[in-house]
Each structure stands twice: as structure tokens, then as C-alpha cells.
């Protein structure tokens, strides 16, 4: 057991001391910090741009009456709002179209308005034809806002004309809501029968997202590190000395466990960076807006998440170790780990893309396949009501396959580390594996 901890300690020390590791960790922490502060930073540059001034011609003439009325009612509509995104700015009629246009363009030039609304012939909609002119491309946000405003204005006008009372109008405008609560019907794996409110579902979904991403990140970073360390030990032939010093199983698990500690510390560091950034005073508002109540997290879901995280990590780690010990040169490693990388990618994407359909057949089937289940079963547990036996079955399959993977990986490790030269064929590996005890 002593040797195991010696290997663990050596692995951690070497990894953490390495320049590459420190630099990557710091760069990622920096990127995270920038990402979190980005809304605030953008806000600093964007100040005062929230309100757009839109000009229109307030004409007294007969044929432009429809346009003027529309402009005025828009102006009135936006003035009623608490935080209007648009302010309508009326301009005097100069008498002819060319002069009006020149006047409005000059206003844009001087920065008094961003664009202006031009009115044409009356149409069936009850409003004249309108064109929004500005220097910018694709001002759909602006036109949508004004369209929405006009629909409301029209509705109010029509209803008023129909002689409805104020109560009737309020009733017509009142929103209709259907709430959702996830309930448990049978012998589920959840922590109670109270069901989950939408807020709880939202928080659970967040937990699942975070856990799936953490698991994927942990597998990707540590998997490659484990594989490349073993290949490096092999190519530097230090392996021959190691194998004559300590049993291969201890050595492999020492390495995997050491790497696990490194990854956990790394992830914890990132989480700390996230929390530090989020708790900074200028970001307080942003978090408040998201309306996350961490006390809504289902504690049992966290336990499941932790279990599947650990098992998923160790399954992939042992597989990566096996691959690292087959390859003898670091150059060949990328190619050799590719299949495993794809498998973990597949599990990750199945889970992420099924988050809105956690009941599909794909999810149900893959939640029993060991390399996918750490991702997918967690999704099912968090978002649906999974019968207890299914959870146990999936976890059982996972444990059995970890045992199998450990056995095979240790064999491959013991065998592969002494195979040099070209990548050995399956036949050679099988034959050699029979020869070694672990």
C-alpha cells in the first residue's frame, strides 16, 4: 500500500510542478474570468445606447394625416412604458418630401436620431405603409418592436370602438398560464414523492449540465495525460525499472488516482475562480437576474452525480491507461486514443442533446451501455422518474465493466509496456496477455 501512495505522490508532484500544467490552468482560469465578466465589460462600452431615437414627420397636411397619427400613437405608446427602448422624435413638416428627407438625414448625421420612419399609402392594416430607414443593416429588432407596438395600439383602438368596458379589456389582455410539476408515479429513484416544481427542474437541469461537462472535461484532460505519461515512461524505458520495482497494478492505479487528484484540484480551482468572479460586487446583479436558488438542488441527485462521476472517470481512465501502454511512441498516441475520445464525445453529446427529450429510446438504451451510462443515466435520473431497479442495473453494469476494464487494462499494461517497435497486433497482445500474471 505504501508504494501506491508513493506513485500517487510522484504523479501529482510531477504534474503540478510542470510548467505546461501551470500555464494551461492559469490560461483557462483567465478565460473563465473574462467570460464571466464579459456582460459587465460589454455593458461599460454600451452605456447610453439602450434607447434608440426614431424620427418621423409630424405633418399637418391632409394626405399625411394617417402617417402622423401612427407616429404620434407610437410616441404615446413608448412614452407610457417604464423603460422604453425607442423614443419617437417628431420633426416639423418642411413642405416637400425631399426637404423632409434631407432634414431627417441631417438629424441622423448629427446623432439626434438613429433612423426614421417613412409613411406611404394607407393599407388594409389600418396603418399606412411604413419604411424604417437607418444607416445600419438588418434592423429587425427595431421593426419588430414597432410592429408589436402597433399591433397593441390597433387592438386597443378596435376594442375601444367595440365599446368594451375596462374590465373586459383587462380580461382579454390577461395572460393564461399552465404550470408544470414533475411527479413520481411508482417506485422511483428520486428522493421523495412531492414532485418537482419548474424551479427545481431548472436547477436540476443546471446540476446535470455542470456535472456532465465536468465529467467530460475530467475524462478528456486526465485521460490524455494518463495515456501520454505511460507512453512517455515506455519510450524513455523508465518503465523497465518501474516494473522491476513495484507491481504493475499498483503502479497503474497510483497513476490514475494521482491524476484524479490533479484533475479534482484543477476543477476545484476553476470553480473557485468562477465563484470569486461571480461574487464580485459588479457581477452581483447578473447572478440575481438568473434567479438561481441553490437550495432547490435535490441532494440525492448530487449523490448520484458523484457516483456516476467517479465510476465514469475510473472506467475511462483505465481504458486510457491501457491504450497508453500499447503505444510505444508519443507520436502514435493521438491516433491510438482517437476511438476512445470519440466514445466519450458520443456519450457527452447524447446526454447534452437529449436534455429536452430525456425519455427517448436512444437515452434509455444508452443509459445501460457502460461507456455512455455515466453521462446518460445521470440525465435520466435528473429529469425523469427512473425506476430504482433500472438505476441499480445501470450502475451494476458499470461496476462490472469497470472490474473487467481494470483486469484487461492491467494485463495490457503489464504486457504492453514491454512491447516496443511497431504497434502490436491483437493476436500478439492476446498471446502475451496470457503469459503474465498481474
Amino acid at each position, binding site marked *: 500500500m505504501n*508504494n501506491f501512495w508513493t*506513485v500517487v505522490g510522484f504523479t501529482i508532484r510531477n504534474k503540478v510542478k510542470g510548467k505546461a500544467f501551470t500555464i494551461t490552468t492559469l490560461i483557462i482560469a483567465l478565460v473563465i474570468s473574462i467570460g464571466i465578466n464579459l456582460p459587465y465589460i460589454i455593458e461599460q462600452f454600451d452605456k447610453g445606447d439602450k434607447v434608440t431615437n426614431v424620427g418621423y414627420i409630424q405633418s399637418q397636411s391632409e394626405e399625411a394625416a394617417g402617417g402622423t397619427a401612427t407616429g404620434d400613437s407610437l410616441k404615446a405608446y413608448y412614452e407610457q412604458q417604464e423603460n422604453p427602448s425607442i423614443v419617437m422624435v417628431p420633426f416639423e413638416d418642411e413642405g416637400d418630401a425631399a426637404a423632409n428627407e434631407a432634414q431627417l438625414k441631417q438629424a441622423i448625421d448629427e446623432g439626434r436620431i438613429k433612423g426614421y420612419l417613412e409613411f406611404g399609402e394607407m393599407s388594409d392594416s389600418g396603418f399606412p405603409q411604413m419604411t424604417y430607414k437607418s444607416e445600419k443593416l438588418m434592423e429587425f429588432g427595431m421593426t419588430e418592436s414597432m410592429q408589436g407596438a402597433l399591433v397593441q395600439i390597433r387592438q386597443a383602438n378596435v376594442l375601444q370602438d367595440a365599446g368594451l368596458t375596462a374590465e373586459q379589456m383587462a380580461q382579454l389582455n390577461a395572460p393564461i398560464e399552465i404550470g408544470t410539476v414533475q411527479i413520481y408515479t411508482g417506485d422511483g429513484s428520486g428522493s421523495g414523492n412531492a414532485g418537482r416544481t419548474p424551479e427545481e427542474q431548472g436547477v436540476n437541469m443546471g446540476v446535470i449540465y455542470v456535472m456532465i461537462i465536468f465529467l467530460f472535461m475530467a475524462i478528456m484532460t486526465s485521460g490524455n495525460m494518463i495515456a501520454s505519461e505511460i507512453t512517455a515512461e515506455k519510450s*524513455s524505458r523508465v518503465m*523497465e*525499472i518501474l516494473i*522491476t520495482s*513495484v*507491481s504493475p497494478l499498483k503502479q497503474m492505479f497510483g497513476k490514475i488516482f494521482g491524476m484524479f487528484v490533479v484533475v479534482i484540484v484543477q476543477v476545484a480551482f476553476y470553480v473557485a475562480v468562477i465563484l470569486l468572479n461571480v461574487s464580485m460586487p459588479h457581477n452581483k446583479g447578473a447572478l440575481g437576474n438568473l434567479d438561481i436558488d441553490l437550495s432547490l438542488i435535490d441532494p440525492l441527485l448530487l449523490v448520484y452525480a458523484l457516483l456516476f462521476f467517479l465510476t465514469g472517470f475510473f472506467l475511462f481512465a483505465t481504458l486510457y491507461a491501457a491504450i497508453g501502454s500499447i503505444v510505444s511512441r508519443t507520436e502514435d498516441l493521438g491516433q491510438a486514443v482517437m476511438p476512445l475520445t470519440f466514445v466519450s464525445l458520443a456519450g457527452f453529446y447524447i446526454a447534452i442533446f437529449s436534455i429536452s427529450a430525456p425519455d427517448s429510446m436512444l437515452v434509455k438504451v444508452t443509459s445501460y451501455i457502460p461507456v455512455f451510462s455515466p453521462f446518460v443515466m445521470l440525465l435520466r435520473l435528473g429529469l425523469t422518474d427512473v425506476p430504482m431497479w433500472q438505476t441499480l442495473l445501470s450502475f451494476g453494469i458499470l461496476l462490472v465493466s469497470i472490474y473487467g476494464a481494470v483486469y484487461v487494462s492491467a494485463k495490457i499494461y503489464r504486457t504492453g509496456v514491454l512491447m516496443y517497435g511497431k504497434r502490436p497486433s491483437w493476436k500478439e497482445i492476446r498471446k502475451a496477455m496470457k*503469459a503474465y500474471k498481474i
Partner: protein
Amino acid sequence: MNPLKVENVVKQYADKTAVNGISLEVSEGEIYGLLGANGAGKTTTMRMVLGLIYPDEGRILYNGKPYSNEQLSLLGYLPEERGLYPKVKVSDQIIYLSQLRGMSRADADRNLKHWLERFEVPEYYNKKVEELSKGNQQKIQFIAAVNHKPRIVVMDEAFSGLDPVNVELLKSTVKELRDAGSSILFSTHRMEHVEELCRNITILHRSNTVLKGSLKEIKKQFPRERVILGTDNEVSGLERVAGVTGVTRTEHGYEIAVSFEAAGADILRLAMEQATVNRFEIKEPTLNEIFIRTVGDRHE
């Protein structure tokens, strides 16, 4: 009971036999020479002794016990090729390797400092292995093999890549290890090292043991067929002495090949008649000659 005993060990790779029935015993405080041409099976034998690969037949005993993880801390290994972490500091990895073999951190550190002093390179303690020259890496490799005070040391081409000064340095430390009671299995291509260090040897040729025993016994088996003669004047008629097969003139006299040892007496008598004899020696064959003869003969 000898610390290391190899009994009729056979190892086959696919269709090729790498080692065919080798037996040897290394006693306490002995350096055992394992000789052979390239590809004769030396490294395979050593790897089996280390438990890196398992023999197909026969067995290897350590203090009378078969291989198990318990024996690991007894063993020390100096591989032919460099086997160290290139990017890890010397102190870190030597201490790590010694700890793996059951030594405490403090002891490992003390031993390492002692060895670095011994090799006159204490400044390497904090250097990375990749920063050192090949010869100096070999010194570190040597320390890695012996730092944990192993009872059985396997040295594959221990002195390759070293300059003469460092060869002497390492040779003297190998002798110290021997005198301290370690059993050393030693392979090299440098026959003069074997003559100097080894009591018993085995010569392997194409997977088979062709010569085995104590160096003295082996030398006795080979006839003394060379006479060195040093005289102040020329000696004529040496070719006509019975048993002489060839005469070569050298700087200070003659080197005479004979077919039987007794011819030496006749040569000496003839020489003394004609000149003052400064030197006369019937040379025993060098290991180099024995090696070339045993291995070279079968080379066709």
C-alpha cells in the same frame, strides 16, 4: 544457499528460441559474467532474472524462493539503454525509485548524496536528466540501480558510453558492491573487464550455453599456445623448433605460436645459445581469444 539461481531456463519468442536451457548460480559477493555476441540471449536472460518476462521452462530462485513481488526490493537493475525520466530532477526520481523499492525517503536522499559525492558530481542533485551528457546520465542510471542497496544487481552493459576515467570509477564501485556482499549479474562486450571482475562466467552463443565455469578453469582448458620472447640479438632457426607454427618479429623480440606448451623449453634453450634473453613468457590465452575462438568458430 545462493542468492540467485537460474535453472534450465528456456524462453521462446514465436518461432525463435531466445534462450535455450541456461543455468547459473551467483553466490554472495560475486560478480558473474554473462557473455555473448549481440543477440545471443544475454538481455533476455537478464530480463527473466528481473521478472520482466517469464521463462517458458525452468525456474529462477531468489534466496531459494520463486519470483514474487516480495523479491522486487532485493533487485537492482542497470539497463543497457537509458531508462530515466528525462524531464524530472535527478534527486526526485532517484528518491522515488528507491522509495518504490521500500527505502525511506530520508535514507534514499542520504544514499543519493553519498553516491553523487562518490562520482564527484554533487551538483547534479538538482539537475534534470536531459541536461546531462550521456556518460553522466549513465552514472545517474547506475545510482538508480544501486541506491536502495539491492542484494542482487543486474547490470547490462554497465560501462558503455563512458570515458576511461569514468570506467575506472564505476569499476571500482562495482567491486565495492561485490565486497559488500551483493550478487551481481554482469554483461559486457569488454573482455578485459570480465577478466578483472568476474569469478565465473557463461558464454552464450545463439541462445545456447557454449562455455560455463570459473574463469581459471576455463583458461586451463585452453592450451597455452603463445610464447613471448625478448632478446638483445637476433635468434635464427626458431621456425625449425618442433611444435612451432609461426614466428612474428616484434619491436623487442619475437612472438611465437606453438602447437604444444613443451615447445617453449626448446625455444628458450635455442634463444639462450644465441643471445641474452630479457623476457620469456608462455602466455595463457586471453578471454578475448577464448571468446573469439568459441563464438567465432561456430559463426559459419
